[in-house]
C-alpha cells in the first residue's frame, strides 16, 4: 500500500537557521496525525514543505507515492490534491464566500459555472455556513471564515488535508464549531495532518500524535502514549505547560 504522505530525512534551513533537522513521518490513507510542539519548533515549516510552500533544503517528500521534491514534479498538480487550511484563514477578501469556494474550481479544475456553484454550495452546507454564501469574509466571524476556508479546500476534492493551527486565531467560543467540522471530516475518512494546540481534539480524533521540538521529532505514537504517557522529559514539560498554563 502506498503511504498518503511519506517524509524522509527532511531538512530545512532559513539562511543559517536550521529549522528542520531530519524529519521522518509517514501518514497512511485515512489517518489523522496531529503535530504538537512548542512555538518555533518548525511545525508550520514541516506542513508547508508537504505542499512546497517552502522548498526543503534536503530530504524527500512523497505524496501518494509521487516524489514532489523531484525538481521535475508538477507542483501545481500535486497541490491540487492537497487541501491546506491556514491559521489566518486567508480567504480572498474581494470575493463572497461562494466565489471563494468556486474560483479555483473554475480556474484550476476548469469546471463550468453551474457545476462549480453546485459543488461550492454543497461544501458550504457541509461545514454549516450554507446561508452565508453571499457574504464577504469581512462580514463573517472568525469561525465562519475558517469553515468557508475548509469548504474552499474541500471543493477541490483533495486526497488529503493539511491544517496549520486552524483554531489558534479564533475566539474561544468559536473553536468548537471548527473542531466539530474537522472531527466529521476525520470520521468520513479524510487523511489529515493537523498542527494544533487542542489536546482534547488530538487525544480523541488523532490516530497518531507527533511531538516536535527544536526541528526534530521527539515522540511519535498513539495519543494515549504521547499525550497520556509521554516517554520523554521534553514532552512532559511541554504538555504540563499546555494542559496547565496557570501553574
Amino acid at each position: 500500500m502506498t503511504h498518503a504522505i511519506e517524509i524522509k530525512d527532511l531538512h530545512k534551513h532559513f539562511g543559517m537557521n536550521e529549522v528542520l533537522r531530519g524529519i521522518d513521518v509517514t501518514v497512511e490513507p485515512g489517518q489523522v496525525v496531529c503535530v504538537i510542539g512548542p512555538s518555533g519548533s518548525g511545525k508550520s515549516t514541516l506542513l508547508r514543505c508537504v505542499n512546497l510552500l517552502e522548498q526543503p533544503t534536503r530530504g524527500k517528500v512523497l505524496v501518494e507515492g509521487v516524489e514532489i521534491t523531484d525538481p521535475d514534479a508538477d507542483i501545481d498538480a500535486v497541490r491540487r490534491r492537497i487541501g491546506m487550511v491556514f491559521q489566518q484563514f486567508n480567504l480572498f477578501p474581494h470575493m463572497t464566500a461562494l466565489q471563494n469556494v468556486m474560483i479555483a474550481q473554475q480556474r484550476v479544475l476548469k469546471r463550468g459555472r453551474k457545476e462549480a456553484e453546485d459543488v461550492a454550495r454543497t461544501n458550504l452546507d457541509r461545514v454549516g455556513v450554507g446561508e452565508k454564501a453571499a457574504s464577504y469574509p469581512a462580514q463573517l466571524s472568525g469561525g465562519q471564515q475558517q469553515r468557508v476556508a475548509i469548504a474552499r479546500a474541500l471543493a477541490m476534492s483533495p486526497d488529503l488535508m493539511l491544517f496549520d493551527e486552524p483554531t489558534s486565531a479564533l475566539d474561544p467560543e468559536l473553536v468548537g464549531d471548527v473542531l466539530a467540522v474537522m472531527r466529521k471530516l476525520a470520521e468520513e475518512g479524510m487523511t489529515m495532518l493537523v498542527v494544533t494546540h487542542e489536546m482534547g481534539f488530538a487525544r480523541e480524533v488523532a490516530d497518531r500524535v507527533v511531538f516536535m521540538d527544536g526541528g526534530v521529532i521527539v515522540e511519535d505514537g498513539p495519543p494515549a502514549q504521547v499525550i497520556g504517557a509521554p516517554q520523554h522529559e521534553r514532552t512532559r514539560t511541554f504538555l504540563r505547560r499546555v494542559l496547565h498554563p496557570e501553574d
Partner: protein
Amino acid sequence: MTDQSVAAEPGKPRLSPRKKQQISRAVQYVVLVAVVVGVVLYADWTSLAQNFAKPDVAEKTLPELFTIALKNTIIYTVGGFVFAFLLGLVLALMRLSTVRPYRWISTLYIEIFRGLPALLIFLMITFLPLALPGFTVPGGTYGQAILGLGLVGAAYQAEVFRAGLQAVPKGQTEAARSLGMSAGRAQATVVIPQAIRIVIPPTTNQFVSLLKDSSLVLFLGVSGEYVELAKFGNDLASQYANATPIMVSGVTYLLVTIPLGHLANRLEKRKVRAR
C-alpha cells in the same frame, strides 16, 4: 508636587479647560478680523481688479481657452498618464522581480527621475536632437510633452504600484497557490484585483500631479495650436499687459483638479470601509 504648587497660589483662580478654550477661540477671531480689515482697507481694489479680473480681457480668452488650451492640457496629461501608467507597471514588476539586475535598473530609474526636478527633464528633452543627431521624438510637440510627463510620472507611478502589490498579504498568494493555481494565475485572480483597489486613490492623485506638471510644456517652446493652459495664459497676459488671462487659466485648472482631489478622497474612504 503639582498639587502643592497650585495650592501655594491661593489668590490666583484657576481657569477651567472650557474657559481656556473659549478665550483661545476669541483671540483667534480677533486676529482674523484684524487681518481681514487690514487687507480690505489697505489693498487697492480697483487696481487689483483692473490687473487680475478685467472682464473684457477675460472675454478675449474665449473660445481658445477651451478649444485649444484646455484641450491640449488634457491631451498632454492623459497621454503622459497612459505612458506613466504602463512604464510604471513595468518598473514596479521589475522592482519586485527575483532577477537582481531588473531590480537594480528599476531602482536606479526611480531614484533618478524622482530626484530630478521635472523642469530639468523637459529642458533635456529639448536638447535630445542635439545629443542624438537625426533623432526626433515621434509625434512632434505632443510626443515630446507626453514623453517628458510620462518619464517623470512613471517613477512615481511605479512606487504606487509597488506599494499596492506589496500591500496584499503574502497569505493571499499562498492560499491561491495551495489551491493549485500557477504563479501567474494567482497574481491575476487574487493579487492584482486587490492591488488595483488599493492603488486607485493614489493613482488619481498622480493624475492631478501630472495635470499640474503639464504646465512645464511651456519650456518646450511650444506655440500656436500646441499651447496649453499655462502658456496660453502667459502669452495673452503679455499681449494685453494684464494678468487676467493667467487668473482665467488658474480657475480652469481648479475646475478639474478640485473635483478630482475630492474623488480621490471619496475612493480612499470607500477603500477603508471595504476592508
